[in-house]
Structure formats: structure tokens, C-alpha cells
């Protein structure tokens, strides 16, 4: 991620750059959604695209999520590579039928003759003080729908690399953008953007020996912080950034857990029926004999996303992660 000319850049800038480069490289790439044209999207991720590529390539649509996604299906059927923006996590629900019944299934129901190369960008998650319906973590719904890829970056470089990969993918990709990381900075060289990151690979962000924190998206930074704080307790935590929830990188995850013998899954989405249950089950099935303790989950509470003044109690923070690590019943090492 660091090159000589690297300067601090935000995740938002990297996403914009990824869209721009994808559109410049391939005239089939079209962006559509609510307010994506003149305004550049409410988070300005599509800023400048309409000016550079015209309003046909970066189109403001009527305000209708099922219509946007449904139209994108037809566009993909005719050879385009639509990139759809859903304005906020909870406003993607009207499009869910298109997603579940058509986007996820078109390749399968047509025996591979109508693949849908489309990307659905969804700003998701909390931590920015958004009002109701602006902070949902809906990844479990998408993960539970075979036929979709589900990815989420945690770094500026991955934001670029994964979005390029999503747009290049011949399958539909739900691209979840952690909105509280939009303005997070990293050194990144926009003149030589990070390489396209293949979908489906987790990465070890920090290596350690005591336990593995399995996490993704907005929680990666929190886990990194927790890992630093854990040193005071004598714990040396490994942090794995999953990056891709579907497909899931069992290999990297299991290699880590087998090394450390202990694992905690950390995410903002609620625990019951959430992504952590699936991840914990996979790890248990594969690493049972290496585990010194049950796989624990640190997640949002099983409540509808709370009002902003209470969200700090809901979101998994450093202390809650460290508590869970403490509950891993240490004896052998410390």
C-alpha cells in the first residue's frame, strides 16, 4: 500500500477512483442509482463520473430501488456491466426481491447462458450517528442468498482493489461499504492504485500467537485497536480481515485458528442468525481438535439498530472484545 509517492487518501477517494478507472477501461460499465449523477451520490462516491462519462454512463434514476436493480438486470442481460448504488443499507430492502429472485439466480436458472455481471454498492453499518434506517448491517441476508458474492473492504487499498474486482466479476457482487470508514485515511498512491484484489481471500492484518480475531469491514479497525490494548494483558492477538464473506476463505481462517487455538468473531451485525454463527460453526467443524476454547462472538445486540445516542453501547468496542478474549479460559499460555 505504501509507495514512494503515496499520500494519505480516504476510502471514499479510492472507491471513486475505482469506479472511474473501471469506466475508463470498459465502456460497458454503467453507474446508476439515486443522486449519483449531478450530486455524485450522498457520500460523493460517484463524484465527477457524470461530468466525465456523461449522464448515460452515470445515471440518476427515479427513486425506486427495485426498479434500479431490476433495470440493471436487463442492462446486464444486454451486455452492460451495471454498478448500482443503493443509497443506504436499509433502503436496499425494496430491491430484495429482485436480488433474491433474479440477481442471485439468473445464471443458475438459465444454465449459465445469462450470467449477470453486476455490482451492488451498499453503504452499510453504523458508528456515524445516522438516524434510524441509516446504520443497518444487512450482510447476513446477502450471505444467506446463494448466487451472490459478498465483499467488504476495511482499508483504502482494498476499497480500490476489491471494487475493481467486483466490477470485473462475471457474477453479481454485493459490495458493502463500511460508511464509517469512508473518511478513514491511509497512505495510498492514486497515481499507481493498488492492484485488483481477487475476491475470496482473507488477509492477516496483524499476526499473533494467543488468539485470532476474525472480523471484517468496520470492525477491523476496532480489532486492531483491541489487539494493541491486549498487549498490556500479555495477549498477542492475531487479526484476520475476512474481506470476502462469500466465498469464504476457510483456508486462511483455519490456518490462523489452528495456530492460535482460540478464536473470537467480531462484527457489528447482530449475533443471533448473524454472520458470526456461520463463521463459528465453520471454524468449529474444521478446527475442533485445535481449539482450546469455544469460538466466541462479539457482535451487535439482537435489537433493531439503536438510536444514535445509544449506538456506542450497541457496537462492539475494544473492551467488549477484550472481555471475550479473557473468557477464552486461558491456562496454557498467556
Amino acid at each position, binding site marked *: 500500500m505504501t509507495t514512494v509517492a503515496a499520500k494519505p487518501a480516504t476510502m471514499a477517494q479510492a472507491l471513486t477512483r475505482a469506479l472511474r478507472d473501471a469506466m475508463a477501461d470498459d465502456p460497458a460499465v454503467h453507474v446508476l442509482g439515486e443522486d449519483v449523477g449531478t450530486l455524485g451520490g450522498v457520500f460523493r462516491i460517484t463524484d465527477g463520473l457524470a461530468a466525465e462519462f456523461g449522464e448515460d454512463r452515470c445515471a440518476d434514476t427515479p427513486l425506486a430501488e427495485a426498479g434500479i436493480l431490476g433495470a440493471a438486470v436487463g442492462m446486464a*442481460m444486454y451486455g452492460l456491466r451495471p454498478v448500482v448504488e443503493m443509497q443506504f443499507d436499509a433502503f436496499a430492502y425494496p430491491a430484495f426481491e429482485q436480488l433474491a429472485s433474479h440477481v442471485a439466480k439468473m445464471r443458475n436458472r438459465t444454465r449459465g447462458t445469462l450470467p449477470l455481471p453486476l455490482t451492488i454498492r451498499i453503504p452499510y453499518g453504523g458508528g456515524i450517528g445516522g438516524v434510524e434506517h441509516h446504520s443497518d448491517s444487512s450482510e447476513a441476508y446477502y450471505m444467506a442468498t446463494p448466487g451472490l458474492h459478498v465483499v467488504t473492504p476495511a482499508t483504502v487499498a482494498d476499497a480500490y482493489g476489491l471494487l475493481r474486482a467486483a466490477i470485473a466479476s462475471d457474477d453479481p457482487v454485493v459490495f458493502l461499504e463500511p460508511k464509517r470508514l469512508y473518511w478513514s485515511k491511509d497512505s495510498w498512491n492514486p497515481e499507481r492504485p493498488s492492484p485488483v484484489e481477487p475476491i475470496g481471500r482473507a488477509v492477516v492484518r496483524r499476526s499473533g500467537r494467543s488468539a485470532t480475531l476474525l472480523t471484517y469491514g468496520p470492525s477491523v479497525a476496532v480489532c486492531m485497536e483491541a489487539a494493541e490494548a491486549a498487549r498490556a494483558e500479555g495477549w498477542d492477538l492475531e487479526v484476520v480481515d475476512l474481506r470476502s464473506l462469500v466465498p469464504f476463505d476457510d483456508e486462511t481462517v483455519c490456518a490462523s485458528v489452528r495456530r492460535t487455538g482460540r478464536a473470537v468473531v467480531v462484527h457489528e451485525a447482530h449475533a443471533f442468525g448473524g454472520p458470526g454463527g456461520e463463521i463459528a460453526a465453520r471454524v468449529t467443524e474444521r478446527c475442533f481438535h485445535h481449539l482450546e476454547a469455544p469460538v466466541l462472538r462479539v457482535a451487535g445486540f439482537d435489537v433493531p439498530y439503536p438510536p444514535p445516542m445509544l449506538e456506542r453501547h450497541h457496537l462492539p468496542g475494544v473492551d467488549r472484545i477484550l472481555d471475550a478474549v479473557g473468557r477464552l479460559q486461558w491456562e496454557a499460555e498467556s
Partner: protein
Amino acid sequence: MTVMEQRGAYRPTPPPAWQPRTDPAPLLPDAEPHRVLGTEAAAGADPALLLRLHAELVKGRRYNAQATALTKQGRLAVYPSSTGQEACEIAAALVLAERDWLFPSYRDTLAVIARGVDPVEALTLLRGDWHTGYDPREHRVAPLSTPLATQLPHAVGLAHAARLQGDDVVALAMVGDGGTSEGDFHEALNFAAVWQAPVVFLVQNNGFAISVPLAKQTAAPSLAHKAVGYGMPGRLVDGNDAVAVHEVLADAVRHARAGGGPTLVEALTYRVDAHTNADDATRYRGDDEVETWRRHDPIALLEEELTRRGLLTEDAVRGAREDAEAMAADLRARMNEDARLDPMDLFAHVYAEPTPQLREQRDLLRAELAAEAEAETAPTTGTGRTTGTAASTEGPR
């Protein structure tokens, strides 16, 4: 001053960007559905077209009968017959050029085969061997859509994409009267009108959504009236008058191809059979009603005109009937063959590249199949338990 009194005086200036694009009056459908057969206008109808429509309608009706029979023999899980609606089905297929696309609903098998899809492949969905039996790209026919109205935005997107690429392709999308209540219907029409996409929406108003009559579906004066609110023309046509349906749809297609944007066509027709073979229509409608519609049968209407013009020769009748019988016999014979399926196909088309998770599951199924095959060749042994180790668990250390 009360608010009511104020109202007349208060007229804000609309924001500058807003200009009504269309005068609603020309968009309104006529009060009476467009008819040709049985009127003087029929005299102008092209004899070749009349005979072609007739032959196709006869074949379509025979197909409906044959497919319904196949449900009784257990060869099809279910069949939604379009008997009585053949005129809409056939006209929908015939007005399209080869490069155009058709977006059918589950009831529109006849339109699909009239577009050249193999009759057996068109039934794959209903037989249950795969979801879509044909290659949509080859025939430019989207998969038969089971969720109501969800195919309509696809038609809009495809037509829009074609136009952006400079192709004069039109999409014709079919939906039932019940489907017009779905949100996707609204979103599709609105998108199409805003984008001026070359789409023709054909509503087959056959009176019922399963058991629910139109009166409980909408309070609009007609379904065609809905078009006006979107800023596109609405046309009302007698859906049992094949010539009229063909005329109205051909007009709408021409209009779309010329850059005039979308049209909503409502065809008034009737579902003579039950919703599907699994439905009991006597619970929600009387025989009288069905009888009235049987007297307004699309094939009979066409035959009257052909007879009047001396075109319904014995040869023509025999030819149409023989074609239909040959098609039915072929369908029967091929549908009575057992479908040959490869269970490994389960994993073939989920993603371009199977995920590691799918590869594991594929290995598991392959092992189960191998064990099954082994058990079959050595019938005396075995508990029937497959040897496939659950690929998802870790072996002992």
C-alpha cells in the same frame, strides 16, 4: 381568509427545471377496446396474416390441451393454460422482429414457442428438470418469470441498454391483471417513461388473479388508464380479436422502435380454464360467465371472418389441424421420455467459478453418487449408507 379561499389565488411558480412533458389527452385509452373482427375494418385485413394467425391459434390451443393432459399423466408438475388467451400470446410473438426481446410470465408459454423455442424446452420449468429449458440469448426470450411483474424492469433495462448502444431493439413485456398491482409494475412503467425506453407492456386482463376478480385488484377505470400517470399512451384492445391485438401491438412496437417511448396495452380477454390444473374455478365464478366468453372465442372470431372472405377452405382447416396434431404428438412422445439429469449439474451454474464451499459440497455429492453406484452393482452388501465423509469436518488428528 380560509385555506379554501386562498387556494384559488395561491399559485407558486414551478421550479424552472420542471415542465410537464406531455399533454395527457392523447395518452388516454379509448373508451371502447379496439376491435377489427366483426367490423367493417376487417375487410382490410391481409388474408395471409389472417391465415397465419388462425394456424398459430389452432396450434396454440392444441398445445394448451396437450400440456394440460400431461399434468394428468404426472409428466408436468403444473400447467397454467392460456386457452382463451391465444390471440394475445400469438400476436405478442408475431409482432416482434428477430432482434427484439420477449419478457414472458409463467402463463406465456405459447408466446415463447411462437417465438421459435422448442415446445419441450418451453415446458422444462413446469416439468421440473431445470428452471429455464431454453437459451434466452438464442431466441431473445427471457426466462418465464414466476414472481409477478419482476420481469418488467428487466425489459426496461434491456431496451434501455440496447438503445444506449445504438441498436433499435424493442422489448415486449407481458404481465397479468393481478401483476399490475405489484410495485415492480409501477417502477418499470415509471422507469420506461422517464427513460423513453423502447418497451411495450402487454397486460392480459383475463379477469382473475387466481380467484380474485379485477374489481378487487384496482379501482382504475381500466388498466390502460394507468399509463397516463406515467406519461405514456394507454391502449385498450379486445384481447380475443387476434387482428386487433396484432394491430395495436405492431403500432406500439413501431412507435417504440422509432424512438417514441413505451406504450401500455391492456388486452381484455378471459381465462377459460382454471388458473392452473390445480385450481378449482367453480369456487369463484359461474358457468354462465364462462359460457359468455366461450361465445367470444378468439378462434371462432377469426374463423367467422375467414369464412366470410371465403378463405377458410377445407385445405386451410385441415392444414392447421394437421400441424397442430403433429406438434401435439411430438410433444406427447418427447415428454413421455424420462428426463435424463446429471445431479452434478446442481453445482454447475451457481457462479462462474465455484466457491471453495461449493467445491467441497460437490465432492460430497460425487462420493455419495459413487457409493450409490457401487451399492447398485453389488446388491447383496451395504447398509445403504454412503461412504462420503462429510467434507466439511476435520479428520482425526
